[in-house]
């Protein structure tokens, strides 16, 4: 390779950092969106592993009736922890913070986000929030035990260290809000020449819709958390009926954020799947505009359905009717997406890969989650299954089966681009199948248990629920084994050093047009924007699509 070629191939890992930023400071003080994304990645994967293990311990406890490995109080603290870590430290930030930071600027042909310093600040807020969460566990009088919803009056009266946990959630909310703000500005101001709104890749579109929800909804939760803290210290009584307050209002305020938040969680996942399906079907995405508009529709309609969490809390029949109707409306744009993905695959030239398998698992599991959601959204059936294991199963199908699987899919899809390394395909398949089967084993029994009437968040149960709980625990072990194998496989790619080509999957969006891993400023030349982002007419024309790996290490030659 000649000198110019050497420069071109130099990735952002190898580019020397400016003076004064040596060693670890090159990472800790970086404003490069790619480095920040990787720092998010490791932090978030750590949190995921912790929360998964806590979840497993909950299921082990429930495998047999009565206390087995922990006391009832510990159990309360453990499910709170599992919820808080999973929601605030994994599901909400996972895809936007890691893959959004890494690929949003590249997909629109920019060299960084619009506010790089703000981006660094978001990362620090995220880490501080996480740190606060840890401190809150081991200080004060024991683990918080309120569940992740921090419902009053219990959250105000419990002796445990809720204030600090709530502060942590407040800081994390701020971090996610600033990231959203950054993304909106970046998409508006930094698109490369020739990229109109309808040339933006779907992943970026979904992040854009998500960012608006983040910005719209997060301040409401911030103020709610501030009120919880003030109530704890000053006992104002804003939510205390004895002092004229109304605890229902807390639930309204809480869900005004937290329901839109579930769309913050799932929209980016849908974006990932919309990228993966066309590439491995070698077919342009079916209904690009429909997917774009349905993302926006979900973002808007999703902000208007919060009170469906409160059908049994004592709200009026009229509001139950209205919110039930609105909830059903959200199902329409979600279904539009599912049909678009399936239609994309129809008569496509499908090539099976681990990311595609994960995306298919996503579609299946998310559909189950969505359909059970309709059962919950209907006012009548909701009363029957409210606060049972059925609800737990439903939101795990959407959160884990949806966002979790989309996160795994994105990991497998973009791993070659982020690190320039290909993982072992066979191990990846085994891991995916193990996780999926474990998932079904875990949550289907819970769904049946819920229909039988087993309430959620209970430490002990009646003997008729024993079989289901045992099976669910068994499935939990399978999930842990599957995810463990998946992460081990990905990490092993660092040792195996099987180098990936720049465009191993035959993708058409801008991130596949640049070297893997990307150079410091992302693009070596002016990015070339196609009039349609998913135009496969030029890719793999002469040969059947194959997974390409680089034969020799060009970077060292």
């Amino acid at each position, binding site marked *: 390779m000649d000198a110019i070629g050497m420069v071109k191939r130099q990735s952002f890992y190898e580019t020397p950092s400016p003076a004064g930023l040596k060693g670890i400071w090159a990472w800790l003080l970086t404003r490069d969106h790619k480095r920040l994304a990787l720092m998010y990645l490791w932090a978030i994967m750590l949190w995921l592993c912790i929360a998964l293990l806590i979840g497993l311990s909950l299921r082990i406890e429930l495998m047999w009736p009565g206390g087995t490995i922990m006391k009832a109080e510990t159990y309360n603290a453990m499910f709170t922890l599992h919820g808080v870590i999973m929601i605030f430290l994994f599901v909400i930030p996972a895809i936007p913070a890691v893959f959004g930071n890494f690929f949003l600027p590249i997909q629109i042909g920019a060299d960084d986000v619009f506010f790089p310093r703000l981006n660094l600040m978001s990362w620090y807020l995220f880490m501080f929030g996480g740190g606060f969460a840890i401190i809150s566990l081991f200080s004060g009088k024991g683990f918080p035990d309120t569940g992740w919803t921090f419902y009053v009056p219990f959250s105000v009266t419990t002796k445990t260290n809720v204030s600090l946990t709530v502060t942590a959630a407040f800081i994390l909310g701020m971090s996610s809000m600033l990231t959203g703000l950054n993304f909106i500005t970046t998409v508006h101001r930094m698109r490369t020449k020739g990229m109109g709104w309808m040339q933006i890749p779907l992943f970026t579109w979904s992040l854009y819709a998500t960012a608006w929800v983040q910005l719209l909804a997060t*301040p409401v939760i911030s103020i*709610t958390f501030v009120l919880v803290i003030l109530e704890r210290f000053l006992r104002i*009584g804003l939510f205390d009926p004895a002092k004229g307050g109304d605890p229902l209002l807390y639930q309204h305020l809480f869900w005004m954020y937290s329901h839109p938040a579930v769309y913050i969680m799932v929209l980016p996942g849908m974006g990932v799947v919309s990228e993966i399906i066309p590439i491995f079907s070698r077919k342009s995405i079916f209904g690009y505009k429909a997917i774009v508009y349905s993302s926006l529709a979900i973002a808007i309609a999703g902000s208007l359905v919060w009170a469906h969490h409160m059908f049994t809390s004592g709200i009026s029949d009229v509001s139950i009717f209205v919110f039930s109707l609105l909830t059903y409306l959200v199902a329409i744009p979600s279904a539009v997406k599912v049909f678009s993905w399936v239609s994309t695959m129809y008569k496509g030239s499908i090539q099976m890969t681990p990311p595609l398998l994960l995306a298919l698992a996503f579609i299946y599991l998310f559909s189950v989650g969505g359909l059970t959601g309709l059962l919950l959204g209907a006012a009548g059936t909701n009363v029957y299954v409210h606060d049972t294991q059925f609800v737990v199963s439903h939101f795990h199908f959407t959160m884990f089966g949806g966002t979790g699987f989309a996160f795994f899919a994105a990991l497998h899809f973009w791993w070659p681009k982020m690190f320039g390394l290909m993982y072992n395909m066979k191990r990846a398949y085994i891991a995916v199948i193990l996780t999926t089967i474990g998932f079904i084993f875990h949550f289907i029994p819970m769904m049946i248990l819920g229909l039988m009437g087993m309430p959620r968040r209970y430490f002990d149960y009646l003997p008729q629920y024993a079989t289901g709980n045992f099976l669910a625990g068994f499935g939990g072990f399978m999930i842990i084994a599957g995810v463990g194998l998946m992460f081990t496989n990905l990490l092993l790619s660092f040792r195996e050093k099987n180098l990936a080509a720049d465009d191993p999957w035959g993708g058409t969006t801008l991130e596949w047009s640049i070297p893997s891993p990307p150079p410091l400023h992302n693009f070596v030349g002016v990015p070339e924007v196609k009039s349609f982002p998913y135009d496969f007419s030029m890719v793999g024309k002469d040969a059947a699509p194959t997974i390409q790996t680089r034969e020799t290490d060009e970077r060292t030659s």
Partner: protein
Amino acid sequence: MWLFLYSEIILFGGLFVLYAAYFHEYPKNFAESGRELNRIIGSLNTVILLISSFTVAASLTAIQRGAKRLALSLITFSILCGATFLTIKYFEWGKHIREGVYPNSQVLQNGPPGNNIFFGLYYVITGLHGLHVIIGMTLLTISLVFILTGRVNERHFSMLENAGLYWHLVDLIWIFVFPLFYLVL
């Protein structure tokens, strides 16, 4: 910056939602508690904030035209206005607290529940607003220092512009807070 300001409005929006819900529940108590607040002092504070907003806007124009000394004095005046606002607020709060009206106090506990909620919201909202005044003053002070060192000048004035926008937002929120508490029916 506009997006960030927007999120701040939503932050207060959550509190205004609470206010609306409770006002619907206790209109009489709210009206009667509102009369206990001193309207003259409230109006004075409103005027002070409005004037300070004007001087901040004027300072931006001044710096764009290169009148550094004028800009400096205008910003200093605005910061002083903010400080005056807080001082007045301090005495106002002090008076209520001396009368035994503060969160979880005996007077409020034994009175009608609507009064308790009214004053609870009063302390939370004005307290949070006061915090924003302090943040705004800090931002203005930073701009002041930057003008002195020359980092903010007639070509690079976005720092001052953003600080000014934030100050206007603080002002705007007060414009809503003032009638809700002082001029309630």
